[in-house]
């Protein structure tokens, strides 16, 4: 994959990754580190110690103004106006037909200031769409992606690592909270969020400060066993945690209800929202397919796009959306859309692995939960 212009964008940490021996991949128009050594080792480091990620490719959209909360209530499926200052919520932006345009994290930085984090592949669609939906509200919508570098420290040691460097009170920064402060003397937004299923932090800073923030976190993390971690392990970490990835579990043909994310949708917002009629209908009528977790017993892993069959009838009953050998479970895991009748944990299924049917079983998501 390349950008339309064919020239991938580089993050301000590109030279750091190169010096660390990273392998790169083109991701949504960015050249991003996919791994530095073994992605399995990076995965295990995040589960047991800590990993440091460059996520600068993610998109940031800022909304400011007295109407920001109301505009977001109209634009998104959730109720951002109810988010407390300094808190974050997972949300989605849907089309009129209820299909998911993107999944988002919404941070409320101040009463009239929201930061929306969108997927790199979607920010060029989401930012103008939010601007259109905000018309008539007293709010400024700005694609601020170029203003922000984003680093993530994820893993059980991350709180100790970050606490060494920041003036913020890390123990009192709750999960899905955000605060402005300094990290190694650098102005940052520090959020206790992530996409790995571990405790962790996301650090938003100016691109010019990214290399200094990376160096400080690397040095502070070294005694804790922190390693640089690439997008390859980020994908297996989020898959184990049962978290959807746009383009795999979520797309324009899928509503939040198929994806098991109906809890995010607030249908009874007073002013309504874009997609509300279609989503109310989908909730009322029920879904034709639903997202499940699958484990298989063989050594080969189901992969995105592989057909899922009912072993009783041989009929094709679904499709794999993501799959990989799980480093934590040490067996193949996958997510799939299947008919609701086959979605109960314990249901026997079969996955067509390039022509060979392999036994599989529906399990509860997530595959992995950290012990708190």
């Amino acid at each position: 994959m390349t950008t339309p212009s064919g020239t991938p964008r580089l993050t301000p940490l590109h030279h750091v990754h190169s010096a660390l021996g990273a392998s790169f991949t083109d991701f949504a128009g960015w050249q991003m580190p996919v791994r530095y050594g073994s992605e399995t080792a990076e995965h295990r480091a995040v589960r047991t110690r800590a990993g440091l990620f460059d996520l600068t490719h993610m998109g940031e959209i800022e909304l400011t103004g007295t109407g920001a909360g109301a505009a977001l209530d109209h634009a998104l499926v959730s109720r951002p106006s109810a988010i407390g200052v300094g808190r974050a919520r997972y949300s989605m932006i849907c089309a009129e037909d209820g299909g998911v345009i993107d999944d988002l994290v919404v941070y409320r930085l101040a009463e009239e200031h929201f930061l929306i984090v969108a997927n790199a592949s979607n920010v060029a669609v989401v930012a103008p769409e939010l601007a259109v939906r905000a018309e008539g509200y007293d709010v400024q919508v700005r694609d601020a992606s170029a203003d922000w570098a984003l680093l993530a420290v994820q893993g059980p040691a991350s709180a100790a690592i970050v606490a060494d460097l920041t003036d913020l009170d890390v123990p009192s920064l709750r999960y899905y909270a955000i605060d402005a402060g300094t990290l190694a003397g650098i102005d940052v937004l520090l959020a206790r969020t992530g996409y790995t299923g571990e405790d962790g932090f996301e650090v938003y800073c100016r691109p010019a400060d990214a290399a200094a923030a990376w160096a400080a976190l690397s040095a502070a993390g070294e005694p804790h066993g922190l390693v640089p971690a690439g997008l390859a392990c980020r994908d297996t970490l989020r898959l184990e945690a049962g978290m959807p990835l746009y383009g795999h579990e979520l797309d324009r043909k899928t509503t939040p209800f198929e994806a098991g994310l109906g809890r995010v949708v607030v249908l009874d917002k007073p002013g309504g929202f874009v997609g509300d009629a279609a989503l109310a209908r989908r909730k009322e009528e029920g879904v034709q397919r639903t997202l499940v977790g699958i484990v298989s017993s063989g050594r080969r892993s189901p992969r995105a796009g592989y057909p899922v069959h009912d072993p009783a009838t041989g009929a094709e009953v679904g499709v794999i959306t993501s799959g990989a050998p799980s480093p934590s479970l040490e067996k193949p895991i996958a997510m799939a859309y299947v008919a609701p009748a086959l979605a109960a944990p314990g249901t026997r299924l079969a996955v067509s692995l390039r022509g060979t049917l392999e036994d599989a079983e529906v399990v509860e998501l997530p595959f992995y939960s950290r012990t708190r």
Partner: protein
Amino acid sequence: MSNPTHLRYTAEHEWIAVDGAGGDLAKVGVTAYAADALGDVVYVDLPGVGSGVTAGETCGELESTKSVSDLYAPVTGEVVEVNGAVDADPSLINSDPFGEGWLFVVKVTGTPELLDAAAYEALLEA
């Protein structure tokens, strides 16, 4: 990345070590470049001993955490030995692609034109 000069190579990133009394045995593996591009290999599906393979055609699969890749036979012939160690521990392909990570040995009946190390490296840089 250093590709040993005593080996021959294919554009599909396999290496071939010609051996045997009459020079008719070819040990086959994948290059360090391929191993790096694959990521951590977690499963190998190798051709069985006694099976025939045809140069340029798929003869197995390498599965990494990220993806599945076809394995192409670099030469034509009969498989006479497979590396049981790499079947049991596919990470040998990552840790020692030109050594312990070898895949199988073919009794060769036909060899297409193969690349030397310099030509292979030129291909990587192209």
